[in-house]
């Protein structure tokens, strides 16, 4: 089967608490991978990184990463990005309330 064309999202960490941040289509930031804007060209994704860099009071160290668009939503393609999107895979002593979008 031919490999699907690559698609990208832009991610960073929130400045206030370091939480994982995803760039939304409206140029705001979400904690949820499912709300990330998907870019079909690398140039568009890199332009979004520049927008994120201009919002450094909100987020830090933005970068782009590839994703797969699956029927159930976006899939991170590496172990690192899967763990970033879902949180630690081991028990955290006092977990947050159910993660809410911000």
């Amino acid at each position, binding site marked *: 089967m031919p490999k699907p064309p690559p698609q990208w999202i832009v991610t960073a960490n929130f400045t206030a608490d*370091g939480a*994982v941040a995803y760039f939304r289509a409206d140029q705001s930031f979400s904690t949820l991978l499912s709300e990330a804007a998907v870019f079909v060209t690398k140039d568009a994704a890199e332009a979004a990184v520049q927008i994120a860099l201009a919002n450094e009071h909100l987020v830090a160290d933005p970068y782009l990463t590839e994703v797969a668009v699956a029927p159930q939503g976006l899939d991170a393609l*590496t*172990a*690192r990005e899967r*763990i970033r999107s879902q949180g630690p*895979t081991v028990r955290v002593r006092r977990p947050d309330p159910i993660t809410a979008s911000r």
Partner: protein
Amino acid sequence: MYQYDEYDQRIVAERTKQFQGQVERRLSGEIKELEFKPIRLQNGLYMQLHAYMLRVAIPYGTLSAKQLHMLAHIARKYDKSYGHFTTRQNIQYNWPALEDVPKILEDLASVEMHAIQTSGNCIRNITSDHFAGVAPDELEDPRPWGELMRQWSTFHPEFAALPRKFKIAISATPGLDRAAVQFHDIGVRLVENALGERGFEILAGGGMGRTPHLGPVIGQFVAKQDLLSYLEAILRVYNTYGRRDNIFKARIKILVHALGVEEFRARVEEEWAFIKDGPLKLTQAEIDRVLAQFAPPAYETLPPANALLDSFRLGKDRDLARFVTNNVARHKQPGYAAVIISLKEKDTPPGDMTDHQMDRMAELSERFGFGEIRVTHTQNLVLPDVKAAAVPALFAELQKLGLASANANKVTDIIACPGLDYCALANARSIPIALEIMQRFEDIDYQNDLGEINVKISGCINACGHHHVGHIGILGIDKQGEEFYQLMLGGSAGHDASIGQILGRAFPRDQIVGAVEKVLTRYLEIRSSLEERLIDVVRRVGLAPFKEALFGPPPARTAQELAHADH
């Protein structure tokens, strides 16, 4: 233990206030991450995968009850009710909000603690033997010398921007090493020469990470009053000649091995000649001032502990017997013992402790000792001054807290870095591997049958989990975005230090613990006696039997290969 004077208190308070302003400017957008990063790192604040992480220094691993209560308070108020004790005798908080960090630093300063120089290219927390001051086999307590080094290195203006980070450890027990001194940028051994004089043997250029090296001896015997000037000379040579063009070649170990030991030593001696008799020469008054802070506590006169501890080991309470056998160490003071509190409970990441456990442990340190707690580089705690007669009562209290695992130095007493669950540098997870090993080998009788085995797991080549020096070492690697693990055998951080060797191809996540089990099974099959430890067997027979257990017999050699070998 050392107490801050007015000067110490003032500089820590000023530093906290300064950082508060920097945080405010970062949150307002006045300064950008690129500018803020070196500032936050100088204050021990990292950005990890999901949150900031604050690393707090615990000098030479010694805490007071008051300090441990404060660490509990910080975990409860600003984090998720736990802290993580590390292989450098620090504690890390994994979830602080940026705006809270200055408040945390204020709280730390109120109990004479800080996070200064727990990151960045500077001299980090000075570490030491966790039994320092109570070990019957040590020459003397190494911590006063650790404290002198801490005071010398804190805010040292010349060494605030070294080529790379710099770690120093000190030990004072001849023929034993509980501080891994051979794997530090500088290792300091308190020794006695043929004349009965005490001084220091100084090693430099040890380390783990990408290129592990055992540190060679640079200074054979440095007099006590010359300790700081000799260290200063080493740091000056490193600061001058260490590489700054390549982060992977910037540690002192690369310089020492590039120059050769003789040339490196010659440059140190040359530098030392200029400064030896300068202001860094320690006066007896200064040494005495610091020694007084570490005076032994008011021990009672008691009969020797051995018979009593033996009676516990042989008693009907088998849980207590196992605990005393594995977790209770001899003490220099008759009637007392040092007790290892394992932070390797099933289902709990190695080194993690809740706020509740910290508070109760602080109380136990006062009830069963003199209000002092030690943090070990193996991610456990020690209560250093427990009356032998009180060990059963302490054990009962530890059981209530879920801190009574009798697994010190056993296969489940695992060192593991935070790995890819938390760390931005990691390639693979460490904690789930540790938890699976703990679960699979939880039968304490099986662990006792295996004997002393150190398992050390790192999630990347930086080796925070000390995988190079594990009897069994596990290194997480990345293969096309997925987690794999290399298995190695034969490492040791002790006086008989050695670097582990890789057994073969890396294992996927779901096979690595099975591979460890095969190694253990083969070890039990081929050990020559119950006393022969895994590390001894590896040194006796090499890796071949273990490779065969993992990968099958080696392929038969062709006639051509055999003929070539004959040549």
